């Protein structure tokens, strides 16, 4: 009972609420910027201009190849020697977004590549310019491939964001550690942090399945009534 009471008191405490808000803030900002950067890098990698392709490939190689923690510490501790001094939040945001962009680039690229050549050609033949072709033909189809793994990346980012605690950003983990260092109550404080993490993961998972279902609607649900409505209505009756 004491454990539950302890955990509950931490969960509702101002420090933990702030930690939770900070974790979410860092996660969302980093991931959203990573998605945008990922698009740019993916387009660069798919461009016909070789130097641009090479640049994109090098980016992916470097940022995917170095441990995130190393990148984070580099941004926080090494950049100041070049005169770039960033706060804990800024360092974490820069490191996490740049790192994640490399992964997003690959996800976006596979999504764009999943749209067949014929779709591009047909749009072109109808007089659409590059932007219109992208906006109305390619992206809506690519999104179906891009969204599910991107939602996974959001969940991954939520957990990776805990690294920000090493550069002094008061996220959930640092909040738990700081609280515990005052009263040695590691169990209760960490459990409180864990509950927040699991709750956020559950929330993201829910959003993910909602998005997947919604994308499915435009594709299959509308048609299902026409194709399978007879079947659907009959089946329960048959079982009874």
């Amino acid at each position, binding site marked *: 009972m004491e454990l539950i009471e302890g955990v509950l008191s931490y969960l509702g405490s101002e420090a933990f609420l702030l930690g939770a808000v900070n974790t979410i803030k860092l996660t969302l900002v980093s991931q959203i910027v990573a998605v945008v950067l990922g698009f740019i890098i993916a387009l660069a990698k798919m461009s016909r201009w070789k130097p641009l392709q090479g640049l994109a490939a090098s980016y992916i190689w470097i940022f995917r190849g170095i441990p995130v923690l190393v990148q984070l510490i580099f941004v926080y501790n090494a950049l100041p020697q070049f005169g770039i001094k960033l706060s804990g939040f800024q360092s974490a945001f820069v490191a996490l977004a740049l790192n994640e962009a490399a992964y997003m680039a690959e996800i976006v690229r596979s999504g764009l590549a999943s749209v*067949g050549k*014929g*779709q591009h*050609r*047909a*749009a*072109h*033949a*109808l*007089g*659409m*310019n590059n932007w*219109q072709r992208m*906006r*109305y*033909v390619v992206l*809506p*189809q690519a999104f*179906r491939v891009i969204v599910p793994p991107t939602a996974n990346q959001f969940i991954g980012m939520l957990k990776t964001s805990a690294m920000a605690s090493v550069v002094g950003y008061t996220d959930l983990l640092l909040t738990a550690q700081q609280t515990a260092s005052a009263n040695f109550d590691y169990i209760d404080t960490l459990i409180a942090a864990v509950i927040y993490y699991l709750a956020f993961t559950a929330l993201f998972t829910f959003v993910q399945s909602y998005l997947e279902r919604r994308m499915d609607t*435009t*594709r299959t649900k*509308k*048609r299902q009534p*026409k*194709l399978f409505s007879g079947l659907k209505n009959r089946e329960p009756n048959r079982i009874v």
Partner: protein
Amino acid sequence: MLQIKQVSKKYHGEPILKDVSLEIKEGERVVIIGPSGSGKSTLLRCMAGLESIDGGLILYNGQDVNGSRHSRSEIGMVFQSFDLFQHLSAIQNIMLAPKVVKRVSDQDARSRAVQLLERVRLSDRAEHYPEQLSGGQQQRIAIARALAMNPKLMLFDEPTSALDPEMTSEVLDVIVDLVKDGMTVVIVTHEMEFARRVGDRIIFMDQGKVVEDLPSSQLEEAAKHPRLKQFLNQITSY
């Protein structure tokens, strides 16, 4: 209407079109035949401004098709593989280009699409998605989609070669209707019966060149070129 002047094109160093010159006049119904690899589909795509050319010039009413989007919107194209937009229903496929390219209102685009669906005899399939439609239905929607831009010239790239025989005729009927209405068409096809029925001019291509260019009525008699004779024998012997 369309002038093709000494066009050449290479693909990975391989010449596909060698110094092709042609002129297509308004109201003409041109059928291009030839063995596979003869460059006929490539020529058609170049006419539509979909492929760059390495030499020569293609002019639509005096304008370079490669430079101007205006000419491209007056040239409609239908592909062998239909290429309907997979994420859109039949009617949305037809409405998209008028809406985004010509900025036609949703209402106007829709009423035009309804007319076109009727014209290709698919009014009952308006809300269906491409994967719910048969090949022949998809191709008819693709024709309606191209017509929605009010093209002056329609290019058909082997419109029936991906279709079962019983679906072929439903697509050909739609094309015959179009031709009756006076549309200028260029059709690449293997259907010789159809070629004779629809075309008033037949062009035979081989190895990237135009080797014969004659009125369809004289196809057999005038076939001088041994390669064309051989080709006609081959496809009619089946």
